[in-house]
Each structure stands twice: as C-alpha cells, then as structure tokens.
C-alpha cells in the first residue's frame, strides 16, 4: 500500500466521480433533443476497442525475457483466455480458467 488511507480515499473519490460523470454526460448534453456531434458518436464506436487493446499491453508491461518464468506464464494464460473464449464464449469460464492456470504456473511450475 504505497498510499496513505486519505490518499486512497481521494483516489477512490476521483474514480467514483469520473465514472459517474461519464455516465451522466449524455444526459447533461443531449437530453433536450439535440443530436450529438458525429465525431463524438464516431469516437464512441472506435475508441473502446483501441482502449481495451491499450490496457492489455499495459497489463503485460512487466513481462521480461531473461528467463522463461518472466514471460511463459503470461503467454500461456493469455492464450488460454482467448482460446477458451473462442471455444465456449462464456466470460466466466474464460476469465477463471485463465486466471487459475496463471496462478498454478506462477506459484507451482515457475514458482
């Protein structure tokens, strides 16, 4: 815990405030019948896949290639998540299957 409790509270307040703001914005701006600008609608469609791809890279930023333990668990568990999802199409199976595999790999096999 690098943050003090007060700093943590502030962070959480910011997360809560900004999350509410993103949900409220359409109602604040367009509830009186104005059409949203086309560029907003366009970004609303193309930004989410780009942001998720960015976050995946962010999640695996700590991967190192000096030893197999630095990258093999992430690669195998990541593949498991994608393949399980293509196969079963069930979010819970994919997420818990991949996370379970990752935990076994980092704690047992490469631990």
């Amino acid at each position, binding site marked *: 815990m690098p943050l003090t409790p007060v700093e943590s509270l502030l962070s*959480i307040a910011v*997360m809560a405030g900004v999350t*509410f703001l993103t949900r409220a914005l359409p109602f604040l701006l367009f509830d009186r019948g104005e059409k949203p600008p086309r560029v907003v609608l366009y970004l609303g469609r193309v930004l989410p896949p780009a942001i998720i791809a960015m976050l995946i890279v962010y999640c695996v930023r700590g991967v190192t290639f000096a030893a197999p333990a630095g990258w093999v668990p992430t690669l195998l568990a990541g593949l498991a998540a994608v393949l399980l999802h293509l196969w079963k199409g069930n*979010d819970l199976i994919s997420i818990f299957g991949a996370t379970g595999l990752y935990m076994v790999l980092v704690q047992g096999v490469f631990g």
Partner: protein
Amino acid sequence: MNRKTLAAAFPVTVPVLMGYLAIGMAFGLMLQSAGYGVGWALLMSLTIYAGSGQYLGVSLLAAGAPLGQVAFLTLMINFRHLVYGLSMLEKFRGMGPRKLYMIFSLTDETYALLSSARPPAGIAPHNFYFTVAMLDHSYWILGSVLGSLLGSALGVDTTGVDFAMTALFLVIAVGQWKKAGSHLPALLGAGITLVSLLLVGQEEMLLPALALIVIALTLLRPRLEGREEEPGPGKREEEPQCR
C-alpha cells in the same frame, strides 16, 4: 419497490447475479492482495460500481498513481458509457429523483438488461427498471465483499490472481474483435501502446499512448467512418456478459 415488481425483475437479473458474484469476488480478492481489506471493497463497489474500472482501480491504488492519471484513465476506460447513455435518454425520461440512480448504475450488464428486457404487463416500467438496477448493484457489492472476506479468511496464496484483469480485457477484446467492422482501432491501440512502452517506459506509458490513439483515430475518421457501421439492433443483441 413492491413484491410484485421484485418477482418480475429478479428472474431477468439471474445471469447478472452469477456474473457479478464471480467477477466481484475476483475484484475483492485482488483488492485484498493489494493490501486493502473488506471496508475498501465495500466502499469502492458502493460508490464506483464499474467492473473494468474497479479492476484498473486496484492496480492504480497498488501503484500509487497520481490523481490526474487516475482521473484520465478512469475517463478513458469508461468512455463507452457515453454510447449507453445516448440510447437510454428516452427510457429514463420522467423518472424523477430515481433517474440519478439509474444514471449512476448504468453498467454494461444493466445496460444490456434494460435494452433487451421488457417489463411484464401490470408492472410500471420505471419501477421495473429501477428494481433491475438495484438488484444488479447489490449483487456486485455482495460479490466483492465475499471475495475480500474469502481472501482474508482462507489465507490462500493469491499470487497471480491479478491476472483476472488481463483475462477480463482479453475476453472483452475477443468479443469486440468478432463484432468490429474494422480491426484497425484495436491493432492501432495495441501498436501505439507497445511503442509507448518501449520509448517512454512502464511508469509513464499510458498518457502518451492515449493521446496518440485519440489523435490517430480522429485523423483516420474519413477512412473508418464508412466501414464502422452504426450499431443497429442486430449488432447490439450479443452483449458481453461481464466487463
């Protein structure tokens, strides 16, 4: 909230119950392993109430990220809510003070339920929507509290449980990839972030990556606008179960 409305709303929310209990528990476990106990899990799920946002929140808290970065990343990861709100303008009209709660609780899953489920005859639509929203929120809180308690009670080795966040984003990406008219936004997002990681480093990689992604997508608008079809009713029907 009367009993008849509850009886009509509950069956509709059962898939979300399963999903939120599981994803909420993983959140509680992750938060616990970052050094934040059950009170924090309760507080975050009560006040933030966002799946992927709270997963990201755990790593922001664990990294001690500055408030500006917290605000900007939360804004970006929640950008899709803009689209949700736009399609709920009509539905929430005339709900009075309850409308504030409806807006607050408009998660991916609640959005999916509200856009597809029809209130049965004899049930006031607004009461039905409100009950669905409250039930979903309570499942999320319950899940995260259970996960947090489980993590501290069992004393299990939770090393690696944070991979749940990576897995969640991968699952969302697979779903988006299948529905997308063009894969360019996703490839661009990954490519730009990778370059930013190599050039700027792990600590400061996200803000430059985000800025470049927004600029690149805005410049590519003439090319992408035609290919990314308006999300019609057919495209919307397969909503991801959890995010």
